[in-house]
């Protein structure tokens, strides 16, 4: 039996409403459940012997949506053969494979649970969930089970699965990643072997070594090096060749030259049994450089997932109105002019105009603003937004590539395409550096060839090895990796290589308001009593009236009220308010207009934010003031950033008063209200044209173009997933104080990078003349080079946080 205190639902963690008395026996004890949905899911989990899920999970599950039979019927669309053709891979006649996008995966236990549950179904041959991407790969025997049954089983345990077609780009990325891994593996194993033999060879130089053994070691080293240079090192040769064909000198040109020359010279030495071998240097170069390249590539791929995420916002099926009723169709089959029914809680499948009905639409994903907007007949709705209140009929007017969502996606892609220009510049500068190196090496070779031809090759190699931009090219990535690690430990994810470097130089930081500086949800900030009644009772009454609404205003009124009054809701008018009966008396809660229908003389109560009124039939009772509260740490973060010399700006789509109030409270002098995404972008461009380096902090898809336009973008982890994917950095936690820390860390990183580059260049400049003069043997050059690289790495490790 539930006690008087509010209990938390054992499954999803939400408070159990007082009038609800649902339990499920889990591990021998009755556990409270908040709704039928949770009860159904928990029962399914227990009945399938998967109770351990509750042991292992680290996060509470998401509250499932009620299992309406219609929703289950929708799943049957996926059995349609024509529709399946777009995402199902037929392996054998009956054996089929599909990729599924899983929603609701919050921790590793979810992966365990779904794999267990689905894997046990008869006819499912394999079901594997990828924890990092939340995607599942399912293989099933179509003669024994249908896809809709698999999807239904997933729904049963509280997750949502959508089939999707992994785009060609994604398949390419996977191939690229696997190739990089193979290369690293081969180079790694090869390096270990060659190093082992190199130690023996070095020692042999001093202590003397049997000629036969020496040759054996050399030949073995060469055999191991061949696949390393031929397969793993291919990446450098290919890219150097590409650069050369475009008449440019990239970093890969001297790398390839050094690797190639060192290998050829060593091979010749092995063949003729003279001189020195440098197989260890060759394999080590390749191994270390490949690791750096692969880390870079991973970051790049992460950033490229944006378009993929956008597709996810769109549902896969829609309800089309036809002459004989409603049919479920795939969204891809929709045409302009179709009439669709959108039920409450559903995502609108395409852009269109409302032809029937009136409801509030949650556009949070597109506008970042948390309040749903009331829309009625004749108004435009956007695909990807959520219908939150009552059923709507819409007429489709744009589909596919013409939709607003697709447009935003294109904007994003363009913004991404614009970015690498800075990288191009760096490449050109590096080109000159490399050209200088090659000229010096050529001159050295020419000089020694004229004077002592037998030494010319070794000395040139020393020069190439010692000037090998190894320390130089490690200088930046190693420092970035170390700093990224420290930041990740504090809940800041860096998704782009340039992010830290740019953040360190940032002069301005632009904040979005809703969900960034504020919590993004309304709170009751004050109650003005209009009649002499107990405030606590008034709040319980208001909470009771809003009992069944999920609207943010209702959530705010219900939050923190322990025992809402149980009453009968007589009437609920979308966007205006509710009327209910308690103890024989009628009460009304809603906007000023709504209350004025009863009390025409009611004067508005002035307050910051929005106000909701409560009254009985006889008299107005109270006014509730709601505002989106700034985060507790917001003011101190703004001060800390100012102390670091960063100018803080606030841009919001919200109205003037609300933004002014927040800016005033947080001490932000630069602010602008009622900003559309385009305005925000213009504001940003204006700052940039003044030569300022702008960091943008925000969430929501509407911010995505702005985020992409800023030199460095930071997204709130709680925000729309899309914004995270396109951002350079993501705050995983819900705490802004990491921002000043990140700036501090970025600046330290930049300092370390400068030290490293200074060291690498200084070392090269000292060693170069010595090598050119023939004082340095290639093995000394290799040790010097390694030592210099080691110095760079150790220096970078100072960025790791001490615990």
């Amino acid at each position, binding site marked *: 039996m539930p006690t008087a205190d509010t209990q938390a639902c054992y499954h999803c963690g939400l408070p159990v409403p007082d009038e609800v008395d649902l339990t499920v026996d889990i591990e021998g004890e009755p556990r409270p459940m908040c709704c039928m949905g949770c009860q159904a899911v928990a029962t399914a989990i227990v009945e399938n012997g998967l109770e351990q899920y509750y042991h292992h999970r680290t996060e509470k599950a998401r509250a499932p949506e009620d299992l309406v039979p219609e929703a289950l019927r929708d799943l049957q669309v996926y059995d349609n053969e024509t529709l399946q053709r777009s995402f199902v891979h037929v392996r054998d006649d009956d054996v089929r494979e599909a990729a599924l996008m899983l929603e609701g995966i919050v921790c*590793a236990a979810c*992966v365990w649970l779904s794999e267990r549950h689905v894997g046990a179904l008869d006819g499912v041959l394999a079901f594997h*969930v990828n924890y990092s991407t939340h995607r599942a790969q399912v293989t099933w025997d179509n003669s024994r089970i249908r896809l809709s049954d698999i999807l239904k089983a997933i729904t049963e345990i509280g997750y949502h699965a959508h089939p999707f077609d992994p785009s060609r780009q994604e398949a390419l990325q*996977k191939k690229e990643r696997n190739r990089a891994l*193979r290369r690293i*593996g*081969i180079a790694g*194993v*090869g390096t270990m072997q060659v190093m082992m033999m190199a130690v023996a060879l070095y020692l042999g130089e001093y202590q003397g070594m049997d000629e036969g053994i020496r040759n054996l070691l050399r030949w073995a080293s060469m055999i191991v090096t061949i*696949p390393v240079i031929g397969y793993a090192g291919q990446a450098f040769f290919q890219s150097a060749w590409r650069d050369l064909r475009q008449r440019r000198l990239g970093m890969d040109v001297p790398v390839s030259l050094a690797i190639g020359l060192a290998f050829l010279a060593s091979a010749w030495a092995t063949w003729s049994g003279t001189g020195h071998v440098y197989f260890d240097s060759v394999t080590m170069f390749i191994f270390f450089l490949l690791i750096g390249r692969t880390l870079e590539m991973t970051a790049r791929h992460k950033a490229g997932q944006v378009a993929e995420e956008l597709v996810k916002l769109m549902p896969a099926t829609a309800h089309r109105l036809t002459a004989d009723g409603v049919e479920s169709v795939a969204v891809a089959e929709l045409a302009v002019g179709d009439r669709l029914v959108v039920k409450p809680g559903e995502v609108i499948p395409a852009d269109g105009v409302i032809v029937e009905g009136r409801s509030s639409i949650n556009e949070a994903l597109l506008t970042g603003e948390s309040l749903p907007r009331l829309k009625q007949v004749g108004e435009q709705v956007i695909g990807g937004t959520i219908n939150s209140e009552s059923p709507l009929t819409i007429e489709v007017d744009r589909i596919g590539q013409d939709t607003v969502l697709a447009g935003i996606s294109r904007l994003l892609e363009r913004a991404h395409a614009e970015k690498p220009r800075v990288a191009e510049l760096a490449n050109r500068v590096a080109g000159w550096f490399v050209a200088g190196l090659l000229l010096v090496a050529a001159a050295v070779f020419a000089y020694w060839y004229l004077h002592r031809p037998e030494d010319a090759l070794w000395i040139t190699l020393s020069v190439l090895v010692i000037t090998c931009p190894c320390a130089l090219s490690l200088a930046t990535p190693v420092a970035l990796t170390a700093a990224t690690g420290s930041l990740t430990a504090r809940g800041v994810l860096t998704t782009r290589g340039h992010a830290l470097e740019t953040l360190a130089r940032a002069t301005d930081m632009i904040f979005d308001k809703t969900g960034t500086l504020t919590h993004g949800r309304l709170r009751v900030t004050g109650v003005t009593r209009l009649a002499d009644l107990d405030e606590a009772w008034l709040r319980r009454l208001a909470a009771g009236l809003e009992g069944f609404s999920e609207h943010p205003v209702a959530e705010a009124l219900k939050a923190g009220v322990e025992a809402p009054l149980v009453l009968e809701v007589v009437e609920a008018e979308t966007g205006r308010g509710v009327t209910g009966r308690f103890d024989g008396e009628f009460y009304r809660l809603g906007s000023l207009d709504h209350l004025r229908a009863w009390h025409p003389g009611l004067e508005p109560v002035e307050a910051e934010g929005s106000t909701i009124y409560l009254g009985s039939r006889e008299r107005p009772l109270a006014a509730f003031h709601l505002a989106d509260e700034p985060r507790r740490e917001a003011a101190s973060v703004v001060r800390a950033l100012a102390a670091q010399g960063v100018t803080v700006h606030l841009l919001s789509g919200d109205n003037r008063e609300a933004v002014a109030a927040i800016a005033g409270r947080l001490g932000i002098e630069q602010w602008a209200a009622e900003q559309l995404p385009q305005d925000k972008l213009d504001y940003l461009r204006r700052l940039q044209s003044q030569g300022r380096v702008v960091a943008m902090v925000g969430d929501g898809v509407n911010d995505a173009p702005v985020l992409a336009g800023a030199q460095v973008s930071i997204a709130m982890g709680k925000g729309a997933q899309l914004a995270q994917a396109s951002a350079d950095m993501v705050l995983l936690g819900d705490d802004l104080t990491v921002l000043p820390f990140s700036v501090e860390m970025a600046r330290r990183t930049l300092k370390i990078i400068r030290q490293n580059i200074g060291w690498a260049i200084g070392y090269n400049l000292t060693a170069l003349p010595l090598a050119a003069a023939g004082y340095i043997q290639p093995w000394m050059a290799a040790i010097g080079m390694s030592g210099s690289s080691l110095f760079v790495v150790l220096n970078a490790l100072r960025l790791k946080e001490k615990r």
Partner: protein
Amino acid sequence: MEILYILIPLAVILAAVAIAAFVLSVRSGQYDDLDGAAHRILMDDDDPMIPNRRPAKPDGKTSKKD
């Protein structure tokens, strides 16, 4: 030291085997999800085998799960 004439070629062959094994493991998708496995190891299913933690379920469903 003549043993080296056998040991070193052997080392090279072993390296080749290691590389082949690695390439196979990449091809079979073992590196596709680098985080999941780390968590999955914690989800061991040995609870029913530990006497004190045997879930108290009367219908006998707990004895063996596989």
